[in-house]
């Protein structure tokens, strides 16, 4: 018999996911629920019909991008947790162009998407410069930038972008700036193709170009990179910029690529935590752009399928969250272990 050509990380992930499922099952038994019924509801809910698969992918779309932000950071030796704030600004940029600037069809959508990405990248500049010039640790600066972004985005949404008469949200994207909905039965729009293309481009860039190689080298072995003449500052700026573009795009997809609101809630409620969730997605996806896509689909499945555990198996909504959390944690363990080992062996 021939061996199945499966990469080691995938096998590890399959093993850890079964550990996570067993742990979740024990938790359910503890609370007197039927785990088989609940997991069935979860899987059928997430993948049981075409519309459910599309809904799962709709939840996955922004996560593959915010995962990319973290992943590119780690690949370049950075711990960039600024996706959250960059994503808020991306949403603001997209809202502004999509909702308030009337442009011709086609161009409008492209401009709104580009504005989202650009705003996200701009928000990544301060921590990048602080790191490159002054050596300020990116964890500190990105956390601070996240909070500033939260209040800035709220302020802009309420005072400049609000829809008259509907104070709870911004002016919705004009029809010319919306990604087409793929079917009437699910929330998925064509925005997912842009997200996938972006992940693919970043993958090709990191593994297919000299600059991408330098970035990875700087992350794997900073001393060797320096010896080989790789400029540390350039790598930092590059990795932050790619991350910012990705996070900005993630924010934009929630405004111009997700019905029914097509706008940003003044509470930021329809984008909040997508950036932080991306960290978990990246860890599960082994900080690899393509792994991140697969992990995002898994997260999307938990997010969408979770409601069926509640609905068909009657599992309490808080417990659904706990079970999802358990699965995510066990899945993240291998990569966390590797990151920790690298840190401490340095």
């Amino acid at each position: 018999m021939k061996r199945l050509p499966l990469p080691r990380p995938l096998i590890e992930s399959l093993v850890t996911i079964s550990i996570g499922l067993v742990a979740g099952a024990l938790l359910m038994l503890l609370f007197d629920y039927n785990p088989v019924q609940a997991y069935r509801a979860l899987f059928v809910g997430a993948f049981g019909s075409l519309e459910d698969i599309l809904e799962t992918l709709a939840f996955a779309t922004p996560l593959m991008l915010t995962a990319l932000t973290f992943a590119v950071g780690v690949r370049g030796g950075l711990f960039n947790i600024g996706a959250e704030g960059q994503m808020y600004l991306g949403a603001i940029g997209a809202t502004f162009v999509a909702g308030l600037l009337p442009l011709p069809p086609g161009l409008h959508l492209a401009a709104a998407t580009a504005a989202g990405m650009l705003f996200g990248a701009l928000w990544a500049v301060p921590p990048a410069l602080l790191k490159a010039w002054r050596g300020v640790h990116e964890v500190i600066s990105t956390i601070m930038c996240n909070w500033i972004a939260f209040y800035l985005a709220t302020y802009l949404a309420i005072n400049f972008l609000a829809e008259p008469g509907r104070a709870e949200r911004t002016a919705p994207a004009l029809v010319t700036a919306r990604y087409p909905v793929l079917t009437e039965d699910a929330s998925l729009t064509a925005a997912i193709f842009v997200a996938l293309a972006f992940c693919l481009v970043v993958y090709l860039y990191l593994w297919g170009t000299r600059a991408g190689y330098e970035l990875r080298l700087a992350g794997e072995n900073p001393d060797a990179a320096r010896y080989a003449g790789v400029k540390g500052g350039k790598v930092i700026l590059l990795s932050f910029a790619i991350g910012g573009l990705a996070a900005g795009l993630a924010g934009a997809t929630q405004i111009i690529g997700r019905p029914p609101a097509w706008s940003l809630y003044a509470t930021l409620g329809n984008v909040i935590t997508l950036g932080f969730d991306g960290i978990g997605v990246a860890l599960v996806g082994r900080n690899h752009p393509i792994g991140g896509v697969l992990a995002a689909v898994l997260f999307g499945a938990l997010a969408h399928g979770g409601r069926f555990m509640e609905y068909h198996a009657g599992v309490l909504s808080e417990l659904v969250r706990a079970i999802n959390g358990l699965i995510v944690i066990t899945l993240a363990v291998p990569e966390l272990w590797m990151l920790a080992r690298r840190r401490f062996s340095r």
Partner: protein
Amino acid sequence: MKSRLWLVALVTAFVMLLIPPYAQTPAPAAAKPFKIAVVSDVGGRGDLSFNDMAFKGGEDAERDFGVRMVELVSKVEADYVPNLTTAARDPDVQLIVGVGFLLSDALAQVARKFPNKNFVGIDTFSQFIVKDKFPAQYPLLNLMDIVYEEHKGSALVGALGTLLAAQYNKPFIGGVFGIEIPVLWKFEIGYKWGARWATEWLAKNKPDKAFKYNTGFVLWTYTGTFSDIPKGYAAAKAMYAKDAVAVYNIAGPLGLGINQAVQEIARARGLKTGPPFWIGVDANQDWINPGFIIASMMKRVDKGVYFATKSVKDGKFRGVVKQINGTLVLGLGTKVAGELTEGISVSTLADLNEFVSMGQNAEKLTGKKVLPASPADIRARVKAMRDAQPPWVWSAVAELEKLIRDGKVQVPFVFTKPDIEKWRKELG
């Protein structure tokens, strides 16, 4: 080799999981099951006010009509549409209730997609969205928005607070608000308007206690949240520090933060009862800290859910929708087809028991202590507090209620930006 065995086992397990869980043989020829689905807002269960009231309505309907309630708690805004859709796809579900203003867009969208199912929104304006985007379909006959006359109820508690300020010679009353959405403007201006009405009443009937209304009399803060309890605490603490006699909770669970601020003062001064007081909202919250919640502005979300379920059961839902043009208003003296159908009131001692049992349910559900004392003790302390206030306070509030019911006074209904700006100029 070992890893491949794992793989085979896993793949088999996944495939098994993909067999639909609801593909079992259906029960033979029983009566068609009637389920209602309640899709909550992000707050979910446990706020002891808005969302819990919706679930209470469902539970009351379960008890009286033999329906079954299923629940879906929205974790993020992106869950609204999938949650409503999940419920609508269940063949046994005949009524889907969306709880909260923010579900309006989602309800309008999903209700159009499932014309055979009935939808109800609490505090929503889905029909206006339908009217705006698909005027030919307005009003959608399977969709009912239920809204409340919070401005009238808020006027009553605004008057109550102001009369207490006069009685105890205190300089302010306060209000802690959630997110600044138009629904809350109704509360805000109603509350301030009631306060001003009370100062006018005092001038006429209690000149020795009277004082002039000024735009600084009502302290108000929008906290920007319906879930962050410490923000309610911080906002209320500042108001009590200025010696406000009562603070009105218009932010659901943030009332627990207000309560904490009151409790600190009570402990420091060894008080068994207010002042300072706070004022509850949505549910009858008077039991949460008996003696310190002077009353609650009850918004009977439960009655809305109950009424909608009943009209579906009686086959009258679409007729009602047609008759009321899609929007059901529940308030003071409101009627549907000539029958009194109210949804706003100031809490009384009589309806306390119903809500004490809501606390008992929460205790059962969470296993944690929710009730601060035994039901009998709660009742005694609330009664003692009410009796300790001079009778003219209560009779003045009753007088305002009658004036509103009879249409002798008009409480301003504020729902737009120009209106709120105008009224804030006038009332502060």
